[in-house]
């Protein structure tokens, strides 16, 4: 703590901060550009100048850059000082010399940091009367649009992209006032975090191209606090809607989870919400040979209820991409005994193993913010950038944090970014990764082991044994692996906060058990460590906590006619098990009811299809991989602009359907009641009622606004439907209104912030006004509740250690490799993600490829138990021989871990990913 004096006022601030950070944390406005809370100071833009005085008697003072000056105890500064103000005005004036004067037609207008700072410094007249220099723009792929003429050369893009996120294909070129920020040649930005450029850039050089194509001003968007549904990390997002479509997704600050950054799958994967082919009305056919008819809600429910009532036995298939509430309502409908999670057995075993480890391995799960403070990491069987990208970004920060430690030893403050990097060079906290192929985090690893899954497990078991010899030893370990295990164990033990990361991506339980042993060993040796286990889908963790039977059980019940009706919740079964199994089960069922927001292969098998709300039209609760229950709120009312729409939350459909089946006329139900029911029925989920404020939460007696106060065009936007403007939709489920009328200020702290806006701060930098300190926590507390804590006590080690991997003659073991773009069910339906995804290829070890006589691009037919696929070959120098790698997200013809045969496929035939 330190006391500083700003314009005569005393403030108690964090002495380890710089003055800019300290002032902003106190709510004082100091303009800045090159500084960023997550990236520290470099002193380039000179916008943050303030006057510093030596002592009380110094009236002269001198200008300093507040971002480069420590907030040392007793520091005296003035922000208001005339010379400082004038200098800051000069800086803006210089920056604007080449900047286009086109705010009214510029896409960034209205959430532009440069615009905010220009107003803040009072620059309103152009005195520069000479020619501006101009640039040509580059094509940077489907996500990011480039407009270099807007650049003010703050260097934030390259600092984020390269220094923070480890990208190598964005740079700064040229010198003097002829700088160019772009790629060395046109092409798709390679970093999976490129979307953050749109928020990191203080102006509109790098903008969200998916937004440009359906552009709306920030103030004309309707927002709600939401949770990303594209993986299990649980990043907080602010989706913005206009005219019934999601127009963009911005980062929503959460002090413990995503903080300032999202991955590109989360930011750009929303397109499935806007698809034209989405089911919007109930669809019905009494026989699968009949044509679909669309029905009104009551008729649809009556048909559904009649069929289900008359069924012998109804089972339900839930979904790890649906909310707790929806899964719970389905389970209520069919009964616990008849409820399947909709997850394939192999994956479910892994999920159960992870859940049990989280409760019993003795180590807690760190939040993403905490991950960044772990100082030795062992990653077993996960390619984090592909499977949980935001965790991967946090791991990179954890590795790089070593530099801050080294810098601190030389009195270099952590915020002095360039100096910290210079001193630290490429010295990182030790990170060890074991995965079948190279990963994008390899550049910060101390050692990387490319191994077959069983060997990854053995390495893990060996590490556990080295840490605690009570953990079982690995028989027949080769000396090199033993040496590696010893080294890893030593580094984990030497660390203050070792972290073990593993997960279900490879579908290998042995790896999870090995990770569990390492965690237990660390816990027994009293290390303040952590364990983080990666799940695949947005609610994998939550659904595991509700529990249910695996998908195979459900299919079997149907195929063997033990059940004749099934209700399938937001789940495309064809993405989970081979089509043959599903076809048989669904064809045998007398009644198939499908609720989904996508027209999936499963939907195509339904008798009754009920149009479910996507995350954008629904409220609900998800449990993230860290065991955090988080509520997402409805962004817009789908009927407002499309009155024919009959989309409802699945939990709402199921509630009414249940009533109809029992012939109980049911009143509508609101979210809070469902959440409460769900909490009551699942004691482990008891705390979810506290995950967010109830619908009756008010600030100053007001609900919270979903629309910024400048929201415009509301009377006009429905004029083509009806000249009289309807009453705004009512929202019984949440404290938010579908309106600009409501609270949106910063004075009263609130956890759930739909969009970041504060007086004078229209850009995402406005988040600084909502946090207790810059980069800290939301003042009202970060949203969500943690549900899982490890129980203390000695826990038994797992003892079944697999044999070492041995290749087979003529057969290869198949691994499924997680894939960020194209690897999940819903975002794969978004056009920009499809455009960005690399074509699916089969990874073959270089030697194996040579032996097979195939090269990159040649096609191989891969045959397993249930069928075969034909794919182009990609030689992988790092993949161990005897293993082949298939990208996740293809039709599940082949199963992770099975042994497959390979045959060179002649001719150009065979469609990628298609099954035969």
């Amino acid at each position, binding site marked *: 703590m330190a006391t500083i004096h700003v314009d005569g006022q005393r403030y108690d601030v964090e002495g380890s901060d710089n003055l800019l950070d300290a002032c902003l944390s106190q709510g004082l406005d100091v303009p800045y550009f090159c500084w960023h809370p997550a990236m520290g100071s470099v002193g380039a833009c000179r916008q943050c100048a303030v006057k510093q005085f030596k002592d009380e008697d110094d009236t002269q003072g001198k200008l300093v850059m507040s971002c480069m000056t420590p907030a040392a105890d007793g520091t005296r500064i003035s922000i208001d000082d005339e010379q400082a103000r004038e200098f800051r005005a000069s800086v803006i004036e210089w920056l604007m010399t080449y900047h286009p004067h086109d705010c009214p037609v510029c896409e960034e207008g209205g959430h532009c940091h440069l615009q905010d700072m220009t107003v803040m410094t009072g620059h309103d007249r152009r005195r520069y009367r000479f020619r501006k220099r101009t640039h040509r723009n580059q094509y940077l792929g489907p996500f990011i649009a480039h407009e270099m003429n807007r650049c003010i050369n703050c260097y934030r893009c390259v600092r984020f992209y*390269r220094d923070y996120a480890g990208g*190598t294909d*964005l*740079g700064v070129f040229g010198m003097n006032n002829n700088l160019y920020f772009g790629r*060395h040649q046109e092409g798709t930005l390679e970093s999976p975090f490129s979307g953050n450029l749109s928020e990191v850039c203080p102006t509109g050089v790098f903008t969200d191209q998916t937004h440009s194509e359906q552009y709306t001003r920030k103030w004309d968007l309707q927002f709600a606090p939401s949770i990303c549904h594209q993986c299990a990390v649980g990043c907080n997002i602010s989706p913005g809607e206009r005219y019934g479509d999601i127009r963009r997704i911005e980062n929503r600050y959460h002090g413990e989870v995503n903080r300032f950054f999202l991955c590109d799958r989360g930011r750009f994967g929303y397109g499935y919400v806007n698809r034209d082919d989405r089911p919007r009305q109930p669809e019905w056919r009494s026989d699968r040979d009949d044509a679909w008819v669309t029905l009104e809600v009551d008729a649809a429910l009556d048909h559904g209820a009649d069929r289900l009532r008359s069924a012998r036995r109804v089972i339900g298939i839930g979904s790890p991409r649906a909310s707790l509430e929806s899964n719970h309502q389905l389970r209520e409908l069919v009964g616990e005994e008849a409820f399947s999670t909709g997850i394939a057995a192999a994956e479910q075993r892994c999920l159960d193993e992870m859940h049990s480890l989280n409760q019993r391995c003795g180590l807690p799960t760190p939040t993403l913010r905490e991950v960044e403070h772990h100082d030795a990491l062992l990653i077993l069987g996960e390619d984090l950038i592909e499977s949980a990208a935001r965790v991967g970004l946090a791991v990179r920060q954890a590795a790089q944090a070593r530099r801050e430690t080294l810098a601190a030893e030389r009195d270099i403050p952590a915020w002095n970014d360039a100096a910290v990097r210079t001193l630290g060079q490429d010295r990182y906290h030790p990170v060890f990764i074991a995965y079948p192929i190279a990963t994008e985090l390899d550049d910060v690893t101390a050692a990387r082991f490319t191994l077959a899954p069983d060997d990854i497990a053995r390495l893990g078991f060996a590490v556990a044994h080295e840490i605690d010899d009570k953990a079982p030893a690995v028989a027949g370990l080769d000396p090199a692996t033993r040496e590696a295990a010893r080294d890893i164990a030593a580094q984990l033990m030497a660390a203050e906060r070792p972290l073990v990361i593993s997960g279900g991506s490879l579908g290998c339980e042995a790896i999870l058990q090995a990770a569990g042993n390492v965690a237990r060993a660390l816990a027994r040796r009293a290390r303040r460590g952590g364990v983080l286990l990666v799940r695949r889908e947005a609610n994998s963790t939550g659904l595991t906590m509700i529990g249910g039977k695996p998908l195979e059980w459900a299919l079997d019940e149907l195929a063997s006619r033990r059940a004749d009706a099934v209700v399938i919740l937001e789940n495309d079964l064809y993405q989970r098990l081979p089509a043959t199994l599903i076809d048989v089960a669904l064809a045998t069922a007398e009644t198939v009811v499908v609720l989904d927001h996508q027209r999936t292969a499963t939907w195509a098998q339904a008798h009754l299809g009920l149009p479910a709300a996507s995350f954008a039209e629904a409220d609900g609760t998800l449990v993230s991989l860290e065991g955090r229950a988080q509520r997402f709120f409805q962004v817009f009312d789908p009927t407002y602009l499309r009155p024919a729409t009959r989309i409802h939350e699945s939990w709402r459909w199921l509630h009414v359907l249940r009533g109809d089946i029992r012939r109980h006329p049911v009143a509508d139900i609101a979210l809070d009641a469902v959440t409460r029911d769900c909490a009551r029925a699942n004691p482990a989920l008891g705390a979810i009622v506290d995950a967010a404020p109830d619908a009756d939460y008010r600030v100053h007696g007001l609900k919270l606004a979903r629309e910024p106060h400048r929201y415009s065009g509301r009377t006009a936007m429905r004029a083509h439907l009806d000249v009289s403007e309807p009453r705004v939709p009512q929202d019984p489920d949440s404290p938010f209104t579908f309106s600009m009328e409501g609270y949106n200020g910063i004075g009263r702290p609130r956890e759930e912030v739909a969009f970041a806006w504060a007086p004078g701060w229209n850009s995402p930098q406005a988040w600084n006004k909502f946090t207790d300190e810059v980069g800290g926590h939301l003042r009202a507390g970060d949203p969500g509740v943690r549900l899982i804590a490890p129980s203390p006590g000695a826990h038994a080690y797992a003892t079944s250690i697999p044999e070492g991997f041995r290749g087979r003659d003529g057969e290869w073991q198949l691994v499924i490799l997680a894939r960020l773009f194209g690897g999940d069910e819903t975002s794969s339906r978004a056009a920009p993600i499809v455009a960005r995804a690399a074509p699916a290829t089969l990874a073959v070890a270089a030697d194996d490829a040579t032996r097979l006589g195939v090269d990159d691009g040649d096609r191989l037919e891969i045959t397993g138990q249930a069928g075969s696929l034909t794919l182009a070959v990609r030689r992988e120098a790092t993949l161990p021989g005897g293993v082949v790698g298939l990208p996740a997200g293809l039709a599940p013809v082949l199963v992770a871990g099975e042994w497959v045969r390979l045959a060179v496929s002649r001719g150009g035939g065979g469609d990628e990913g298609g099954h035969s």
Partner: protein
Amino acid sequence: MTESARRIASDAEGFILEAEDRRAIAHERDHYEQPQAACIEALKIVQHRHGWVPDAAIPAIAEVLGVGPADVEGVATFYSLIFRQPVGRHVILVCDSSSCFLNDYEELRDTLSERLGIGFGQTTADGRFTLLPVCCLGACDRGPALMIDDHTYGPVDPGDVADLLEGYA
């Protein structure tokens, strides 16, 4: 086809980092703690062979040094003696700094320009000369000064230009 056009064409055909250059770059790398330090020297090695640094050389150098292509391009476009466009057989660097300026550099520049029919940053149609300005050549006691390829001349009277250029075929 002019010389420079030919060079551009040959570059488009694909760039190969010669084994000898690769070795020279690898050798430079050993002088420093980090391979990136050899970046400027690597660019110079490529430039020595080709006269300039073709686009395709950037990723090739990046690969040898184990850095990103953006790093190499960032460096290549920062330094004035690295040419990212084809240049003539001879490069004339004319000192345009204060002492030469006071010794009538502008006259010398104009004479050169007129004689060659090109301005700064341009190459003569026959691919013989490229004209560039350069920071104070440290020949202020004999300004105006200029450098052609490896040699510095000064003072260069505008009347001497014709003779001087004769020496460079």
